[in-house]
């Protein structure tokens, strides 16, 4: 079975425990205005025009067996603490491919990062195969989510509850802390309230905004969203007290 991958990063330190290899699967149903991987959104290979460095084909078709084997080989160098992380794009857009790669990685610590905008049953099947899920819920309010990410939040919350009730892998919430979008008092209050209704969520991690994001849009022949022009990291107020520990990652 074939799948589309747009990058493989070796030796990553921000995508889960230990030293990892992160695989970026191409294609995403969301269009977050702050997205720092616009080249990962489209579901087909595309050519990037990099200033000063010519053109680069973004999106390589991998056979699931070959990718699984390649990742298992790299994972052998990651040590017991580390492993493999699947990110994107949205890896849950290619669930069958993802599942087939995961069958090659038994005994390896695996993380899947998802926005939650995906087929809920597929998510549970992936959950059964991985060590951890980073659930990328961003904005709790349906209309605000629609505005900032291009998708409402109904399916995402529904899947979160399903994962919380029926899943087995540990999971964390992981949110990009975008000023003005994610750090609003309304969103943080909603997140707080939501956290008290979850039974299995281990923690909430905020990711800093990526100031280099805008530069990538030109390479894809697109324009960075003006609402998000500054793309700065937001703040967490002192009143924020969710039911689980939280932190801002480096």
């Amino acid at each position, binding site marked *: 079975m074939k799948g589309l991958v747009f990058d*493989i990063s*070796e*030796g990553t330190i921000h995508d889960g425990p230990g*030293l990892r*290899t992160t695989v970026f699967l191409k294609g995403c149903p969301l269009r977050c205005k702050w997205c720092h991987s616009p080249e990962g959104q489209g579901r087909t290979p595309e050519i990037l025009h990099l200033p000063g460095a010519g053109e680069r084909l973004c999106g390589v078709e991998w056979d699931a067996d070959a990718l699984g084997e390649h990742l298992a080989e790299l994972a052998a*160098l990651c*040590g017991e603490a580390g492993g493999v992380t699947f990110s994107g794009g949205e890896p849950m857009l290619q669930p069958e491919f993802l599942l087939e790669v995961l069958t090659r990685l038994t005994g390896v610590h695996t993380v899947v990062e998802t926005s939650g905008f995906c087929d809920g049953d597929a998510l549970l099947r992936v959950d059964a195969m991985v060590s951890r899920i980073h659930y990328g819920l961003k904005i709790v309010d349906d209309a605000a989510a629609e505005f900032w990410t291009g998708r409402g939040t109904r399916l995402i919350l529904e899947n979160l509850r399903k994962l919380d009730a029926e899943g087995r892998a540990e999971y964390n919430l992981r949110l990009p802390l975008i000023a003005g979008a994610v750090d609003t008092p309304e969103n943080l209050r909603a997140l707080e309230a939501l956290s008290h209704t979850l039974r299995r969520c281990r923690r909430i991690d905020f990711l800093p905004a990526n100031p280099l994001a805008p530069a990538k849009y030109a390479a894809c022949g697109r324009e960075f969203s003006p609402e998000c022009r500054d793309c700065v990291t937001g703040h967490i107020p002192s009143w924020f007290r969710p039911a689980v520990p939280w932190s801002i990652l480096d």
Partner: protein
Amino acid sequence: MLSDRLQKMRENTRERFYNRGRIAPLDEADVDLTGMSPCQAAAELFVRRCRREVPTVFPGEKFCFTRSQGKIKYPKTRIENLSADWELLLEQGVAGRLAVAREKLAAAPPGSETADFLAASIRMLEAALELAERYAAAAEAAGEPAVADLLRRVPRHPARTFHEALQSLFFMFSMFHLSGVTLQGWGRMDQYLEPFYRRDLASGRLTRSEAGELLAEFFIFANRENDAYGMIQQGDDGESLMLGGCRRDGSSAVNDLTLLILETSCDVSMINPKINLRVDSHTPEEILRAGIRLTGRGLGFPQYCNDEVVIPALIDFGYPLEDARDYTVAACWEFVVGNGRDIPNNMAVNLALAADRAIRWGLREHAAFDEILSRVAPEIRGQIKMPEPTLLPNPLFSAFSGECLERGRDLHFGGGDHLHFGCHGCGSSTAADSLAAVKKWVYDKKEVSPEELLRALEGDYRDAEPLRRKLQDSPKTGNHDPETDRYLKFVFDAFAGELKKLGRNKFGGRIRPGTGSAQFYVKMTQGEYRLHLGSTADGRRDGEFISSSLAPAPGVRANGIFSILKTYGTLDYNKLCNGGPITLEFSPAYFRTPEATEKTVGVLRAFVASGCQQIQMNVLDRETLLDAQAHPERHRDLIVRVWGWSGYFVELDKAYQDQIIGRTAYGG
């Protein structure tokens, strides 16, 4: 954290405060040495230099010796890239070595070479003691009685305490330099100093933090003579020391001093001493963490050596097992084994040039690709010849090297057990990439004709930009690609095979092949040189650099750090015992927080697990380097790894600065 006093001393060292009294050195041409034997001449010159030194004592300092004479003109055949047997000094003192020399001299036939060597050695040892006594007197006159007492005790007598041991080492290290030794190493410091450290802590003479403070001061002292000791560039002055690894019996050699030295080096954060750390699958996590914390300081060290690969390679070459386990490094990365006088950086082969000549020949002759490959070894052969140097003696250094005194022979005249020569294999990634490009475009796809490529190479790709881009789109070393891995292994096998064929020379020496490049990445690519590399078939233009030691070619961004480790893990290091590190640059993100640093320890585990031999992990922030080039005054203390040594970026020639700026840093 350094105390205010040490902070000031560090600052003064960078300001060259201690070098203000420099006087002109006494060189060979200034002394009449006619009619003297080489040993007598070495002794005469050293004695005169000692007398020319003006003892200078600075108030409040715990150690003593500041060189008065500036950089001397070094003879080509000096002793360099070695560490003295510091245990001999600490256990016997200069007086102990003098007693051995005198006893042997009494038994030697008058007028014999042995008598000549021993008499010279005695003269030099006595001159060193005389200078120590003048230092003691100067300390007394300066109102520093404790320092005066210290100098009357060591280096003459065996050291009794940690403090005495450090002073004894520093004084004799400085004496060896004055005798013309360069690129000296400190050897396995956590081994020979450990008994003193342990005893002082047990008896309550020192606390751990007081020992750390003494070490820190000693390390700052080791930076005082940068200007007098630097060779090709400032900072290329040896002062490497080795930590960790195993003992001669194979058991772990790691101890608390290993850790203290790593921690102290972090606090001092100067270019000397350059730290090397021996690691294996069983190295304690605590030691690796301390190593990575030091790496994160951005000093370009520690350099890590994988005992599981190094020791078998040394045994395979023919060194005795116990000596192989006791290895240290020369000034840069070359593995040095005791009881001998190897010259580990004697020669260099331009592997990229050998591949390029084979390729151009093949294109001209319309040869098959395999014929090009079989042409590589003869091209390597054409670059080398057996070294037969005329070596000058150093009876002072010989007194602290193996059994030279006991045998009555200078180290350079057969006083050691072995005298092998090291050869660097340079430009390996460019060689492999060029072969891969030719194979892909000329032989497999047949999209480029031999004539077209030959013309482009001879015209340095002028008017051939599309072709050059095409060639760049080929498999690259560092991606663990089967094609380039095969050629990389092939060129190193050919290299090792040709060196082996040279056999032994008059010293009984053989050639040790290595994977380092030393200064040759500049020498072989910039300006006139016998082995100058023009444009190459991987799309590299004349004048562009090759990589430093083992690394993807400049401008190549490999898949990532694991692919690079897997690539270099495929080499047959049993044939490559001279050393030469993977040179890998990391973005500062890997070290920004304690959590990140902890994860980065995994890189070392991966390095060992992938079967690589040696690695330099450097922190590289390109923007900072560019700013330092434009505004050197703002970056006076910015330290970078150059090849096997670290230097202050702003003190380097531009070519060396540019090569570093062109390296690729891998992100976290």
